[in-house]
């Protein structure tokens, strides 16, 4: 018996979500009186995972796995799960994690709890809390199968140091053709992405036009944040589609979400409810976003944002 976590990496470096799934897996393993095993693909130094509690790290190195392929990565996870007799498999909720987890679950005949936000409230019956109804509620899901796959919602558990003296192992795998081949990858920008960002600065139709996004980008720069927008803004072509957040766009689960000139329609809020702290800047004190926010300024973005940039620069410098 063991808890297997897939510690995802990019260019040999662990993603933040990897540290989160390891931290989470360690606690689940404690609940089950067993050990956590972390699986990594094409990384060179796994010692960072020991810091977060991985008692064992299995490293797979294979050039055929340099580019992510859901079916091939799933096959590696399945093989490791079998070898380690894993009863719980934890996968992050990145785009890639969400792509491969259902494959892993279906192949292992395992119940899959996606969007899990907390440690199991009980291990018998095995019950986890998950997001449901576009963040308007939670479901306490009971997994009845012997093997359980948990998709851990981003930023829901955080990472917690829990240093152990870990051991490492290598695993040789043969990579089969998957039927789907990556032809090219286009990165839209080198800036921090909405998925990875701790802070997201988002603006809506209140900004009046695309020419006014300079101050939004500057604010994001000062904070090391990603930029985002409401749906009408991307529909109008003011901003790229990839920036649209909400029910029909991207979900945001950042630590801080700053909404500027966004009214806070229910479909917009559905995508940002999972963010920890929400700040709203809006001229209309009746804007629904004020009900969903933690901090707010009733004011004109064109006056408030430049001041905020100036003061933040001073704050960062001090």
């Amino acid at each position, binding site marked *: 018996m063991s808890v297997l976590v897939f510690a995802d990496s990019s260019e040999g470096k662990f993603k933040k979500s990897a540290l989160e799934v390891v931290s989470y897996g360690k606690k689940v393993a404690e609940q089950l009186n067993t050990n956590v095993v972390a699986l990594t693909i094409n990384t060179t130094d796994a010692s960072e995972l020991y810091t977060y509690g991985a008692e064992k790290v299995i490293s797979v190195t294979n050039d055929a796995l340099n580019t992510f392929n*859901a*079916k091939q990565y799933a096959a590696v996870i399945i093989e490791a799960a079998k070898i380690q007799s894993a009863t719980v498999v934890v996968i992050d909720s990145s*785009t890639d994690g969400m*792509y491969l*987890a*259902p*494959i892993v*679950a*279906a192949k292992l*005949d*395992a*119940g*899959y709890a*996606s969007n899990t936000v907390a440690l199991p409230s009980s291990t018998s019956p095995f019950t986890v809390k998950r997001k*449901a*109804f*576009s963040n*308007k*509620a*939670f*479901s*306490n*899901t*009971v997994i009845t199968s012997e093997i359980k796959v948990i998709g851990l919602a981003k930023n829901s558990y955080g990472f917690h140091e829990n240093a152990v003296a870990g051991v490492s192992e290598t695993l040789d795998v043969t990579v089969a053709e998957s*039927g*789907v*081949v*990556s*032809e*090219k*990858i*286009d990165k*839209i920008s080198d800036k921090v992405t909405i998925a990875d960002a701790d802070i997201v600065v988002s603006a809506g139709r209140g900004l009046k036009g695309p020419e006014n996004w300079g101050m939004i980008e500057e604010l994001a720069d000062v904070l090391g944040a990603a930029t985002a927008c409401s749906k009408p803004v991307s*529909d109008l072509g003011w901003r790229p*589609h*990839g920036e649209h957040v909400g*029910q*029909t*766009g991207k979900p945001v689960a950042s*630590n801080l979400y700053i909404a500027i000139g966004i009214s806070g329609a*229910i*479909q917009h809020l*559905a995508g940002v409810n999972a963010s920890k*702290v929400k*700040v*709203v800047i809006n001229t209309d004190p009746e804007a629904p976003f004020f*009900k969903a*926010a*933690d*901090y*707010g*300024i*009733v004011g004109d973005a064109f*006056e*408030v944002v430049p*001041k*905020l940039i100036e*003061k*933040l620069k001073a*704050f960062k410098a001090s």
Partner: protein
Amino acid sequence: MKILVCISHVPDTTSKINFTENDTKFDTNGVQFVINPYDEFCLTRAMWFKEKQGASVTVINVGGSETEPTLRKALAIGADNAIRINTNPTDGIQVAKELAAVVKSGGYDLVLAGKESADYNGQMVPGMLATLTDFNFVNGCVGVEVADNKVTAIREIDGGNETLSSSLPIVLGGQKGIVEEKDLRIPNMRGIMMARKKPLEVVEPTTEGTLTNVGSFEKPAPKGAVKLVDADNVDELISLLHNEAKVI
């Protein structure tokens, strides 16, 4: 080309979410149900294939008779026929197993499903369905072309797009981008009239496949009131974010 579009019947986005029977059942009272928004994008793309390249389009739902108006709406948008698998599913794997039985016997080439459904937000059915049928699979599609047997799909990745090539048969998890918002169709009178005459076949479930169930639902804890900061005092906001919220 035979296309199957999986349609999930979900509460309209503005619905109030409440629960009954000790928080174990979703309260459908007063809730308006619609085609899951992602599925509507997929259906529209299917109509494009039908019109531009020639294809038959079947829509399918796993659900009780209450989902039939949603399937009729899909027929009114232009699907040729509909299938309802008559069971109220408890989890994604059950839906996927039921769909897999139809997909295997129906000779479908292209199966379109939404990236996620707006009710239980499983994000699991397309991947499970592809695995159970051994079809190729691309998730999070924002574009797809099919020429002969060759499929070119574009999926969204963190911070960009990836172009993938594959072949039929394939399951695609689609989202906005697979068609644009402006291409979505509102059923017209003629479509609605025609939809009444189109076949809607009800088939009985074939599997007992649940691996999870909902013990209970809960709503988020009520949020405290917003703290307002004066527009002339952004320093206070910075200090609150730093000292109280500890996010900067």
